[in-house]
């Protein structure tokens, strides 16, 4: 009899004949063992990807992922699902391109339909100076072997004839496109990694919130959770949004602030926009989900927050950006808006590194770019946890770079995280 554990056209057909009785849960409801080799705190995309790559590529499945809520309930389900690797700085490009390549093979690797859609990410420019800046970014990408293409006005017009090209203040002059960028179904990323890790023997423990760390002589011994103590040789934190709170339990203060970023989805409409488009004069990015909803967002609210909801001035600002760029969305009704908590680091770039506590490792500071980084973040964190040395493409993401001055500041805003 065909096993339904591996998803394929044959398992779908077999289950149709079997009355859909043979499907197994995508992951077990694991109960915590007394100890593991590695415990990963945080069952979001990054934590699950870390567990998956630890088991798959580094041969260590004696791993538990502990999650305070349920799988898919955090930021992995609260983003705008965009993936891209259009970065400027050498510390960032190879890392995000590694992520892009992992996205491209993700569904085959996981045997899970994550709806990876390379529909192209188009960043519009609105002035000569901005064109030059985008040309520089595009060239930096190409020097690192990443695809990018600078489009003139006619090329953008051919793609999206209905954009507002004649805006008096911000006329569209062209765009920089990464055709390999696009969107991925975010929940499916969490579910796919959870299933993949589970099948390789990783325990996924939900509803277990970390309440403290057992640290003896400067070395980690395990984590105290709401489901009891769990021993571990190594502990990895992947709790972006709440990094400061969890790190404080281990007595650490981080170069991170938590901020709220809002996102929006409209009612479902017919196919309207087939790629990802960003407005270069304000901050507005939009794509259309397969259900037809327009998914869009803009800036963070700009003040520290753990509230998972934002305020109306940013709602107004985002919608004004949308109306300036594409007035025809004006009569589409807004269906939902929500907020996610961002780990804003002091230079706008993430951290994947050891901590001063032996055996305790940190992954965080993803700002508002964590979703696209999920696969590479997991791979590099798994590498660090397994080998105790940084992965080649994540070497720059050091925790001490603010002290030593090796910052990776794409936006050049300095230590004012609400401006990144």
């Amino acid at each position, binding site marked *: 009899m065909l096993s339904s554990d591996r998803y394929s056209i044959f398992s779908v057909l077999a289950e149709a004949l079997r009355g859909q009785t043979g499907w197994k849960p995508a992951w077990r409801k694991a109960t915590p063992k007394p100890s593991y080799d590695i415990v990963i705190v945080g069952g979001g995309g990054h934590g699950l990807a870390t567990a998956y790559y630890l088991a798959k590529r580094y041969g260590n499945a004696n791993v538990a992922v502990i999650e305070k809520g349920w799988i898919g309930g955090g930021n992995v389900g609260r983003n705008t699902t965009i993936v891209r690797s259009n970065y400027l700085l050498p510390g960032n490009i190879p890392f995000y391109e590694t992520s892009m390549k992992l996205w491209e093979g993700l569904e085959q690797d996981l045997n899970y339909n994550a709806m990876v859609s390379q529909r192209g990410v188009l960043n519009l420019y609105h002035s000569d100076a901005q064109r030059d800046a985008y040309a520089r970014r595009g060239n930096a990408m190409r020097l690192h072997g990443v695809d990018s293409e600078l489009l003139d006005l006619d090329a953008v017009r051919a793609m999206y004839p209905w954009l507002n090209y004649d805006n008096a203040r911000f006329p569209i002059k062209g765009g920089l496109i990464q055709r390999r960028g696009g969107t991925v179904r975010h929940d499916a990323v969490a579910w796919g990694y959870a299933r993949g890790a589970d099948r390789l023997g990783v325990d996924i423990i939900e509803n277990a919130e970390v309440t403290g760390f057992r640290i003896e002589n400067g070395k980690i011994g395990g984590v105290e959770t709401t489901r009891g103590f769990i021993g571990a040789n190594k502990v990895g934190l992947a709790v972006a949004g*709440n990094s*400061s*709170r969890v790190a404080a339990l281990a007595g650490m*203060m*981080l*170069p*991170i*602030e*938590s901020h709220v970023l809002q996102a929006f989805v409209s009612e479902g409409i017919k196919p309207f926009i087939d790629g990802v488009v960003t407005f270069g004069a304000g901050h507005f990015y939009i794509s259309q989900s397969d259900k037809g909803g327009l998914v869009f967002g803009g800036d963070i609210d*700009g*003040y*520290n*927050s*753990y*509230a998972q909801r934002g*305020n*109306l*001035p940013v709602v*107004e600002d985002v919608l004004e950006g949308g109306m300036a760029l594409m007035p025809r969305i004006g009569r589409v009704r807004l269906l939902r808006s929500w907020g996610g908590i961002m780990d804003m680091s*002091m230079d706008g770039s993430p951290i994947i590194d050891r901590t001063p506590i032996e055996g305790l490792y940190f992954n965080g500071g993803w700002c508002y770019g964590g979703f696209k980084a999920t696969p590479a973040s997991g791979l590099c964190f798994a590498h660090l946890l397994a080998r105790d040395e940084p992965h080649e493409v994540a070497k720059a993401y050091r925790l001490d770079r*603010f*002290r030593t001055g090796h910052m990776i500041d794409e936006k050049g805003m300095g*230590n004012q995280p*609400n401006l990144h």
Partner: protein
Amino acid sequence: MRINCPFCGERGNDEFSYLGDASVVRPDASAPDAADAFYAFAYERRNVAGPTQELWYHSAGCHAWLVVTRDTRTHEISDVKPAQDIALERQNSASTTP
């Protein structure tokens, strides 16, 4: 979120600019541990989840710096004081301490 400016009355938060934690004090540059102190001052954050004091600037109003006590979990504001008053209080308490 509305902030009750002590000079202008209650206004929407888009009239204000945010700076951050009001509890941090610029370190003494001549202290022997100045390098560490300035690193912590510039880059480390308490990032409190709960009531915290922060500096807001009434940029589209009276241009006063304010110390706002706000719960970062709910955005509830319990107190707003002019930053000048708080600074003077600090100065006075520092000068009266033996």
